[in-house]
């Protein structure tokens, strides 16, 4: 249907060859964006893992004579107010953010899928109860829910992971429930019921494998949000403790230096932006591939 609609409107001003060309360009564009996004994300992860190998400097050791040096060859990103090499700190600083966001998306995907699948498959009272609970969690603006949980548990990476996980679970549960609900009506599930397959068998063999691709796409989209939340928490001082390098914390510590050393808050923030951008490109690309109705947009 989408094809018919599109060609009807495009016919007026574009010749067929150009149209075909445009279609290929768009397709290549999407794959390109997703590929570049994915590769860049991999690059960011590798950089933060291999930070000690990549940099000759120590991320924590104070070196006062070197303080607030502008970007130069020995210090590509300059130095901070304690004379520490900023590039080194940006390399190390991805660790808490990436750890928090990857683990919390993983945990939220597992928990949310479990809740959503159970609700969608069992239906009735269980469904009602679980979904009302999810509704209540969604009544908090997600950032606020994360802040509330950290407020209760205290600061630090493990608590930040719990906080971000909780704020992401409702979305996964909703998506998984909708998918599970539509799958239970599919013929192969109905047939499987008819030949006497048990509930767990159906969930394990039929529902979960079919849920997985859309959940992975959802997880990529949520990863962008998780990185944003994790860095917001550390910006607020609710993540790692100084002097541990961390992107959000570095922006927060550097913000009063904008008058004379803009590079201090600039580079860690740029790192967050580029990481989220890469995740968004990857997520958009994956979503377009999975959802054919969006492909021609």
């Amino acid at each position: 249907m989408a094809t018919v609609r599109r060609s009807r409107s495009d016919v007026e001003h574009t010749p067929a060859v150009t149209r075909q060309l445009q279609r290929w360009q768009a397709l290549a564009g999407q794959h390109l964006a997703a590929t570049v996004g994915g590769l860049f994300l991999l690059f960011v992860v590798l950089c933060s893992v291999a930070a000690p190998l990549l940099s000759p400097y120590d991320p924590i050791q104070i070196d006062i004579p070197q303080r607030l040096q502008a970007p130069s060859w020995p210090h590509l990103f300059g130095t901070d107010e304690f004379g520490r090499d900023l590039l080194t700190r940006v390399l190390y600083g991805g660790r808490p953010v990436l750890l928090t966001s990857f683990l919390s998306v993983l945990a939220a995907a597992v928990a949310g899928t479990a809740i959503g699948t159970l609700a969608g498959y069992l239906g009735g009272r269980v469904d009602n109860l679980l979904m009302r609970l999810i509704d209540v969690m969604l009544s908090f603006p997600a950032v606020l829910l994360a802040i509330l949980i950290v407020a209760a548990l205290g600061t630090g990476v493990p608590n930040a992971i719990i906080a971000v996980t909780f704020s992401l679970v409702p979305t996964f549960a909703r998506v998984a429930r909708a998918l599970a609900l539509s799958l239970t009506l599919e013929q192969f599930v109905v047939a499987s019921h008819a030949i006497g397959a048990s509930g767990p068998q159906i969930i394990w063999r039929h529902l979960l494998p079919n849920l997985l691709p859309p959940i992975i796409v959802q997880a990529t989209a949520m990863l962008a949000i998780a990185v944003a939340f994790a860095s917001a928490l550390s910006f607020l001082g609710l993540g790692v403790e100084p002097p541990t390098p961390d992107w959000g914390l570095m922006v927060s510590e550097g913000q009063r230096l904008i008058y004379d050393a803009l590079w201090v808050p600039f580079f860690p923030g740029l790192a967050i932006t580029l990481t989220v951008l890469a995740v968004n490109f990857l997520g958009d690309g994956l979503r377009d591939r999975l959802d054919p109705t969006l492909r021609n947009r």
Partner: protein
Amino acid sequence: MRYLISRLLWLPVVLWAVASLTFLVLRLTPGDPMGQVANLIVDQAQIDRIRAEWGLDQPLWQQYLAFLGNLATGSMGVSMASGMPVSALLAQKMPPTIELALVSMLIATLIGVSAGVISATTRRRAVDFAARGLAVLGLSIPWFWIAIMLIFIFAVQLRWFPVGGRIGVGVDYTTITNFIFLDQLLTGNWAGLASALHHIALPALAIGLTTSGFVMRMTRSSMLEVLHREYVRSARSRGLPEHRVLWGHALRNAMLPVITLLGLQFGALLGGAVITELVFSWPGMGRMLLDGILRRDYAVVQGTVIFVAFFYVTANLAVDIFYHFLDPRLRES
């Protein structure tokens, strides 16, 4: 109609659940709410007396009942740090945050909707790609960072806007409701109004720019959906000028999903405002919430979170109702 009534009846239940969840999360914690105060007081008897005063010596369920009872009468407890009632603190700190969120939403809507329409009508041309690229960039930039960068460019370098604060130092202004725009309008204080606008521009832009990315994407896809409908073609075939077809016929119909998104984004905006406020020393709920967390001032954290969640739930309900009035098909069913 029945749907609306059920939504309205559901509202108090959600509010109760939100309040209870906030209470529980904050009480089930390992930390002692007395921790901060106990550092200042050495005498155990004194600590016990304060505990009793705040009801912390009672079993959890009694504390919960007292909390619900207080909440029902509009009392949110007393701040342990300042000794002021939380409701009074909120009345003072809530208007700046809501003002900021509303102006940000206005900016996000103006930029997002226009960019979305332009992008939909230039589909797959350079303008469209550029607009979509900017939208993804916008929604990828963290609030706090774009805020700092805007301060650097427009306040430090160009000196077009002030670095922070709500209104200029030395500008006369009156406080009635503490909604600064409303107050200046009521008193006819144009200089104060101008100064307030000047001060809100940068923080609102910081939040508005990032949010406009979401609005733009939703507007674009919704416009693309609508542009192929019969009524748009028939409007064109009747010879209406293209701009009227686009901004009148098409956009009006494309706005429904956009409005839903705006309602949902309002919560994110409030969250964003809480964070952006810190950068601009905006005297709103953000600073209060963060101080409350760091000092373990539970009444303040509890009150702020519950208030924002209440506001968010009510805003979503309002959007739902508005939606029903906009779409005649939903109104009749």
